[in-house]
């Protein structure tokens, strides 16, 4: 569990750091970024996990989203892990951008050759929190999660599969119903096999239907001009419909003119940080 600091930069009074460690769950070296707000110098702070989208690493979010100021003001420790194991030398892992490296889809793979390394769900929900709780001034009782695109899917399933574990959840243009989109089908069949009933355990829209009802306030922002929305990869309407039926509170904001990029994320990141701060600092 030894942490190796890769970098540390002062930012809005706090420190943006990157660490490397040997992941037991993933059987490889993993990097993650952690932002320590000024408040962390004097006491424990809530932890907010960010899950990046396809092709992302720990770097995308910390360099492009501009979340630091809001995190600094609200006193949140923000953890941004990588999106998949890397350097595992699995055949075909670098063949496409939407599968393998950079596209772990936050599931625990059951199929060869992925099942040894591609256990991102357990990494995000078990190993990484333990590591963070042990090494940083965070309050384990106050944890929230959010993400973008594939990371939005990850955030939603982590929250929906673990009622009460996360105080709040939010997403930017999440893949809401992977069972029904090409990305999801490709990834799930690769990681989980062809039995589609297993897929439902990692599909937010399906998980909502069996969600036991512990209060969870979900904020989703979606760019109206997002090509993947138009392409049918994200399918937020299905998720909204399920939540409406199950009375899971969602505020879904379709933002006129925005696309799938980090420019879109940067525009609304402050709203999301505040959304989480409201529950984490309540």
């Amino acid at each position, binding site marked *: 569990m030894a942490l190796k600091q890769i970098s540390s930069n002062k930012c809005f009074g706090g420190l943006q750091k990157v660490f490397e460690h040997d992941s037991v769950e993933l059987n490889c070296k993993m990097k993650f970024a952690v932002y320590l707000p000024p408040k962390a110098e004097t006491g424990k702070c809530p932890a907010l996990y960010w899950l990046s989208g396809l092709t992302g690493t720990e770097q995308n979010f910390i360099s492009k989203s501009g979340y630091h100021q809001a995190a600094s003001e609200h006193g949140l420790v923000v953890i941004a892990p990588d999106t998949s194991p890397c350097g595992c030398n699995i055949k075909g892992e670098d063949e496409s951008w939407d599968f393998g490296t950079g596209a772990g889809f936050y599931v625990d793979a059951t199929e060869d050759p992925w099942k040894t390394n591609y256990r991102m769900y357990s990494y995000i929900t078990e190993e990484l929190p333990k590591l963070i709780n042990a090494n940083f001034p965070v309050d384990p009782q106050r944890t929230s999660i959010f993400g973008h695109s594939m990371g939005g899917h990850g955030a939603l399933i982590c929250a929906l599969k673990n009622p009460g574990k996360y105080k709040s959840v939010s997403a930017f243009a999440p893949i809401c119903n992977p069972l029904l989109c090409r990305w999801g089908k490709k990834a799930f069949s690769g990681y989980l096999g062809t039995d589609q009933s297993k897929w439902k355990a990692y599909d937010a829209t399906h998980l909502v239907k069996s969600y036991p009802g512990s*209060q969870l306030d979900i904020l989703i922002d979606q760019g109206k001009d997002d090509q993947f929305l138009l392409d049918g990869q994200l399918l937020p309407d299905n998720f*909204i419909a399920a939540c409406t039926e199950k009375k899971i509170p969602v505020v879904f904001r379709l933002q006129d003119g925005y696309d799938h990029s980090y420019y879109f994320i940067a525009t609304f990141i402050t709203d999301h940080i*505040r959304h989480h701060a409201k529950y984490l600092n309540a």
Partner: protein
Amino acid sequence: MEEESGEELGLDRSTPKDFHFYHMDLYDSEDRLQLFPEENTRRRKEVVQAERANESTGAGDGKAQRDLQEEVEELVHLYGLEDDHELGDEFVENMPRMGVSEYPPYGMKRRDPAREQRDWRLSGEATEAEDLGFGGWGSAGQCQDLREVYRYTHGRASEEYECYVIPEEEDEEEAADVFCVTCKTPIRAFQKVFDEHKEHEVIPLNEALESAKDEIHKNMYKLEKQIIDMENFANHLEEVFITVEENFGKQEQNFESHYNEILETLAQKYEEKIQALGEKKKEKVEALYEQLVSCGENLDTCKELMETIEEMCHEEKVDFIKDAVAMADRLGKFLKTKTDVEISTQPDFEDQTLDFSDVEQLMGSINTIPAPSAPVINPQTPNSATGSSVRVCWSLYSDDTVESYQLSYRPVQDSSPGKDQAEFTMTIKETYCSVTDLVPNTQYEFWVTAHNRAGLSPSSERAVYVTAPSPPIIKTKEIRSCEEAVLICWESGNLNPVDSYTVELTQAESPEASGVTESVVGIPTCESLVQLQPGQSYVIYVRALNTGGPSTRSEPATVHTIGSYFRLNKDTCHPWLTISQDGLTILRSERSTPTKEPPPSDTHFTRCVAVMGNLIPVRGHHYWEVEVDEHLDYTVGVAFEDVPKQEDLGANCLSWCMRHTFASSRHKYEFLHNRTTPDIRITVPPKKIGILLDYENSKLSFFNVELSQHLYTFSCQPHKFVHPCFSLEKPGCLKIRNGISMPKHVTFY
């Protein structure tokens, strides 16, 4: 003379009592001039300066004392006490002589150690005198003694050309290091072991010194106080003295003029009497003379008759007879004329009563005074009236004697001058009267005449007094409040205008402390915005004021500065809506609504079935909640007061609203401003909507209260105050909850 002025200056500084000056001036100054050669004079001045310098750099007590004395002296100068030689000398007569004996050593000490010894002794005596309860003047002198002692013991070191033997220094040479309490003497420590001090209580010398100093300081303080007291007493006596002088002088003049008048009257009477007497005498003498003349004439006639008769008797018979008959006739005639021998006038006085009544009246008037002159009625003292009474005051000329006054009044009526208002008159002994049973906020004209046994004075000028107003009536239903302020309105309660209003606030948290904690005064209109502390309860009263005074308190109104509190403004209400009694529930009934729209209006909504609330015009945070039915079509938000009443809410730049429509089992939520809305989907229909208006951050936010869920935030720049607005697009009911504290989750927005 130079020397003397220097000396006076020095003494002025240090002498607390005026009578010291007299002794100096009267007995010493010239002697001194002869006693001291020029050289000494110069030196002495230097010494005085050195001493003074020492004093100012010395203990704070000394400085304070001197300041005090300067003050005292200023007072003395101010009241001219030192110029009053008579008074001063009188005091001195009864004084212990210490002031006199004290002075000369001041100039001579330098050369005469024996004299100095005496001075020490003297001061000792003074202390004793004080202990025995000597009078204030004595203690004042003693105070100077103490200070001089102080000055000589502390200031001497700076005098370079003279040296003195100081008792304290001798003690130090003996190196006494402890103080025997029993013997009250400093001793050396080893003596404690061997000597008679063996059994005695012993304390360190420093400690003894400190306590002795404390004691002295305490005494000095007491003396200072006594000086002040006696100074005040002396000044008071001086005032009494002057008053006595004045009063007696006045009386003297009075007597003089009266007695002069009496004497003049008497002299005049004397003249009159003498003259009358002379005339009477002349009259009598003339009458007597006349009588005497006539008597003489008669006598002559008788004599002549007698002679004629005698001559007849010597005549012959015939002639005799002839003449005798004629004579008899003549004689008969003569004798028939009565000879008046009564004295026509009496030699003594007739009854001459002296009339002294006017003198008596004058004598009497020495002690009685003529009818008083017209009293002077005072203008009304501000704030002296109540709603039903005024206190009228007047004054008399000091020379007048008045037994009683007659106070008359009548209400001032501008409107109907023809109709005379009843006048009221009352008799009063004092020069003031509280006139009761008057009408509130009304002007009355008062005038007064004075009366004594000599008669009635002319009437005073007429003065207009006004009664205080009636208490205002707070419009409790129109009270609006927020965390920081309350807007309170009231009815005047008076027909005539009043000058201003006062709002009084008491924090209701402490009912036993009934005192007014805050007042806002000088409010010209019938409403006031009062700044308050958040989270408190206040009881508010209003008073109306005019020049006569304040009214009694209005009925109280209670205000809670928890959240923002408002009521719906019925003036803005669309005719199809019904507002509940408490002004917080909006009902659009199920009955078939008339198809015809009401005519356009600027005040109330005519197209959208809406109503506005009266939010307090305070920039800050305002939060309220609206209970809605999830299938109801409603619009809630804020709008400017002048939002077009013929347009839908949110259809212009003057309103910001959340609109819910429920159609074909789908909920649609719009956040409308200027006809545009973001595309937002909400999965759980709110049953209670929280609305946060934040002027500071120019935001309007909507929440699902039950879920603590943030729904949407407008960024709006309200350039003026907005009001809550509500509309019902279908029959149903909206219930407003306000006056509640803001939930924590909304503070993030």
